[in-house]
């Protein structure tokens, strides 16, 4: 920190990211409430712990190798090798044994920036978690959580969410608030697991007609979704650089006006994304309420789908554009969820593939038309935003880095018999043993206390 302005900028940036991390914890709390509320009573504690344990597992693996992937993979495979060229020093500085990945008075930013990305990783894994409740083995899910949270989403972040990523340079890929980078990849991953895992017992009638398995506690589900909205504010803020000078950006921007930027170091404002976050949320809720005939679960999920659909371009859209795009995303997510359920017998317990995957995919594609010709970054020589670049990006996110690895890993797990719980345990309930022990313990202590009366 050379002078007091530099020092204030650094400490402000450190505090800014730290606050976003605290906010983003609410996303995880929301996912827990949502999943447990959607599960049936006999599976509550298993559902809670299956999701909860992704937190430490993704955290440590993101420290071990996830963060390094982000800095090492931007050029790979089309513009260079892993940790090659200009990425070599950045990759070396973000290995788990680097001095900057530690308690270090000379580096105040790496820790909070790492943590902001880590919370995105938790989100990616949590999206998958909700879809597969009540029948996946915990240990199988935790391997998937590490793969989506510390490997596949962060590869796509290096490619399409890093100012030097090859997708940004060659395709003009633009995804400011992660329609594809988080949501499409996690939705695609969830679909890949679900395809192999199969539906919960009783989900489909003998003739293939799907049955509704309503959440045991709709209140808890919608409050969980509202909690996710709250944490989403932190997510949006964490996708920005809060303050930076054109000199530091070192691109094509002229003059001396400092600005906030998106993740690509292209200018935006917190005001812009606040408008668009709220308008896309509103568009999503309004349409979802209408199309679902007032169903609370889908109305709240529609709000989320609305934000997710508009997120790719929410740094640049007009608020009314964000509202209509959000509304379209909610409509498409609702329709696609039930179409895929009927047609392909996919049992997505919380609609995660639709709300995150399909809405995210469509959001990336829509940004290609809405922002056609706009610069993807402030750097010279990069492709501009286009429908074909965005479509290719959406396919890479949802299909190549999402569905495909999940499908292959799940197939291997299924062939080894370690993907799904036995049918008898599924029917009896995953909490049966703990619940029985609880009842015995209660009866024992009640009897003992009554004897002491």
């Amino acid at each position, binding site marked *: 920190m050379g002078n007091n302005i530099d020092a204030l900028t650094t400490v402000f940036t450190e505090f800014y990211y730290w606050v976003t991390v605290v906010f983003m914890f609410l996303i995880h709390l929301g996912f827990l409430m949502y999943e447990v509320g959607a599960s049936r*009573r006999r599976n509550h504690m298993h559902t809670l712990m299956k999701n909860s344990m992704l937190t430490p*597992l993704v955290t440590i693996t993101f420290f071990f190798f996830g963060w390094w992937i982000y800095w090492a993979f931007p050029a790979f495979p089309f513009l260079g090798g892993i940790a090659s060229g200009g990425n070599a020093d950045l990759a070396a500085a973000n290995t788990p*044994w680097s001095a900057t990945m530690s308690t270090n008075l000379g580096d105040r930013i790496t820790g909070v920036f790492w943590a902001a990305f880590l919370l995105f990783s938790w989100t990616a894994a949590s999206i998958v978690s909700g879809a597969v409740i009540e029948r996946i083995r915990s240990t199988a899910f935790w391997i998937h959580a590490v793969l989506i949270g510390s490997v596949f989403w962060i590869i796509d972040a290096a490619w399409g969410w890093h100012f030097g990523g090859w997708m940004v340079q060659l395709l003009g890929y633009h995804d400011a608030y992660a329609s594809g980078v988080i949501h499409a990849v996690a939705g695609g991953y969830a679909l890949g697991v679900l395809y192999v895992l199969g539906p919960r017992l009783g989900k489909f009638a003998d003739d293939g007609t799907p049955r509704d398995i309503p959440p045991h506690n709709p209140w808890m589900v919608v409050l969980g979704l509202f909690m996710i909205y709250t944490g989403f504010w932190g997510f949006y803020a964490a996708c920005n650089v809060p303050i930076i000078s054109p000199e530091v950006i070192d691109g094509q921007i002229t003059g001396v006006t400092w600005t906030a930027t998106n993740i690509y170091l292209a200018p935006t404002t917190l005001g812009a994304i606040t408008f668009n976050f709220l308008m896309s949320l509103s568009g999503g809720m309004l349409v979802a309420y209408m199309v679902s005939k007032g169903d609370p679960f889908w109305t709240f999920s529609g709000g989320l789908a609305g934000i997710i659909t508009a997120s790719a371009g929410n740094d640049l859209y007009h608020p009314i554009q964000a509202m209509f795009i959000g509304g379209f995303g909610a409509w498409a997510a609702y329709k696609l969820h039930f179409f895929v359920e009927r047609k392909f017998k996919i049992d997505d317990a919380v609609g995660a593939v639709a709300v995150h995957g399909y809405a995210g995919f469509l959001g990336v594609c829509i940004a290609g038309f809405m922002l056609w010709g706009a610069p993807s970054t402030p750097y010279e020589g990069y492709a501009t935003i286009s429908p074909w670049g965005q479509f290719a990006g959406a396919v890479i996110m949802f299909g190549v880095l999402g569905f495909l690895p999940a499908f292959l890993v799940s197939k291997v797990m299924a062939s080894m018999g370690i993907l799904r719980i036995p049918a008898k345990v599924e*029917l*009896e309930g995953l909490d049966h043993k703990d619940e029985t022990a609880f009842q015995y313990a209660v009866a024992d202590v009640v009897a003992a206390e009554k004897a002491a009366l």
Partner: protein
Amino acid sequence: MSTIGYDSWAVDLADVGAIYPFQGTEVLMVIIAVVAWLAWHVYQAKAESAELKEREAAFDKKAASKNIEGY
């Protein structure tokens, strides 16, 4: 003598970098931590398989029916 490399804060902070104890052991710490992480998965996978097997063997149709009705 100090495990963190400093035994006094009478220093110019501009010259201070890492301040954690036992600097120089980072690679060893990473190796141990990765092994511990992998071992955790192996232990949990075995424990879960054993428990599911036991639960399957002890399946109680009446209890399952009651649990299903409890939604």
